[in-house]
């Protein structure tokens, strides 16, 4: 079954149209990347799927159910998002425990203590971090908390908005390994935005290259590794990607 299908998606910010006629389909259990330069509309697509960007036309179908613009509670349990900047995505006055308990409180899930412990363990956070404030954590630890927050509702689809680009190189590798392991262990589907092609070849099965709000090419990660992308813009992207061996 397809986890996510997007057809003819046009997203507007006010008067200006940001994406044009986006079509893509992500299979369940697949890891799919959206790549492209800044301003190409990749993050906007994620925001529309999640429900933060509300003015769009076309159709978004997740697990067989059509999405309407805006956030809905039922969908929140199936799909969560991890933001780019772990310094901005955690409430500065809330402890890790409070941040992780909040989704459980929203959805009226009772077994607070254990589930927080369990999710912290699965993202590799030691128990002693549980009652710390974000300013007492490093960037990588913060991003682990953000991932734990997204996972605590046990969603099937995870939207990842450049989850490593705000981190140090060594920490990036840790988080990428974590994401890879979590996907394998929990059978997650990823839709990931990035401009780092090395991340794509490490973590993703397929990718779509976006430019000026359009998808110019959909290819498999194998094609990327072989340098066998067809569209001239995609080839250019590979050529100017410093971190990619091709």
């Amino acid at each position, binding site marked *: 079954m397809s986890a996510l299908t997007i057809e003819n998606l046009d997203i507007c910010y006010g008067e200006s149209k940001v994406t044009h006629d986006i079509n893509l389909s992500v299979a369940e259990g697949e890891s799919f990347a959206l790549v492209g330069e800044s301003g190409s509309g990749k993050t906007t697509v994620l925001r529309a799927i999640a429900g933060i960007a509300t003015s769009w036309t076309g159709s978004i179908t997740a697990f067989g159910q059509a999405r309407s613009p805006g956030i809905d509670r039922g969908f929140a349990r199936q799909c969560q998002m991890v933001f780019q900047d772990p310094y901005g995505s955690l409430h500065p006055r809330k402890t890790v425990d409070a941040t992780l308990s909040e989704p459980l409180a929203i*959805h009226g899930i009772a077994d607070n203590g254990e589930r927080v412990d369990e999710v912290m363990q699965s993202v590799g956070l030691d128990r002693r971090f549980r009652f710390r404030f974000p*300013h007492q954590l490093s960037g990588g630890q913060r991003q682990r908390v953000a991932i734990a927050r997204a996972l605590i509702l046990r969603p099937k689809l995870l939207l990842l908005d450049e989850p490593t680009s705000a981190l140090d190189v060594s920490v990036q590798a840790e988080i990428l390994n974590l994401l890879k392991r979590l996907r394998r262990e929990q059978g997650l589907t990823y839709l990931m935005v990035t401009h780092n092609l090395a991340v794509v070849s490490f973590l993703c099965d397929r990718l779509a290259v976006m430019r000026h709000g359009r998808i110019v090419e959909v290819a498999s990660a194998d094609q990327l590794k072989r340098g066998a992308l067809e569209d001239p813009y995609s080839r250019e992207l590979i050529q100017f990607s410093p971190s990619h061996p091709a």
Partner: protein
Amino acid sequence: MATTRDWLLDDSPSSRLQARLGRGYRLSRALMRNPLAMVGALIVLALILAALFAPWIATHSPITQDLAMRLKPPSAEYWMGTDELGRDIWSRVVYGARITLMIVMLVAVLAAPVGLVIGAIAGYYGGWVDRILMGITDIFLSMPKLILALAFVAALGPGIQNAIIAIAIATWPGYARIARAETLTIRNSEFVSAVELQGASSFRVIVNHILPLCSSSMIIRVTLDMAGIILTAAGLGFIGLGAQPPLPEWGAMISRGRSFILNEWWVATMPGFAIVIVSLGFCFLGDGLRDVLDPKHGDRQ
């Protein structure tokens, strides 16, 4: 002692309570390193103690008249002299602390939450909700505080309760503006998006995630405004629209002493000192709190 301190400063607290107390402890330590803030805190503490223990601190009754002893200069018997009805000014100033403290607390309790909630709602929803609420706020804000309070007291009738209500009505718009500005900066941050994505209701987002971040600037603002509130209350008392005789309200006392200011200076000066010192105390404390609580000072909190 050392173990309590270690427990409070533990880098890995083991419970919510410990995390919260630890944060409080760090804040109060930062506040104590600021001498002016400590002076302010001591003055405010003195005000609170004077109000609580007025009957034990005062040497005479604040309202019993003794015409044989009228207009006596400061002496060992009457520390701040006596007024035109022979009442001990020191005792009246001490009892006046009760009235001042009551005014300040009630205004803060009435005005700050109203302003906070209105500002947060306006900032969070935006659009026409924002326009309507801020329109109302601007109408109130466009009139000088004392004049607005005067108009309300004139309409409601003189008296201390009405003065408090009037001052509260004149004060909330400022808080609403601040809360709205704070909310606008928080509104689009990713941690708010994140809880929204989890399906949180607007009520939950505002109460649990936005208001806690507005509250520190609100505490600072309210503390700094206390001086203004005291002055407004004293102003109303001076004109005769605040506390009514024989209540020992500082503004009203200055007003009574006005006629003797050339020959019996202490009658107006002593309550004047009280107003100046207490206002100054609140200003110092507010400044200190700003240094400690201001989010722009980054990770020190």
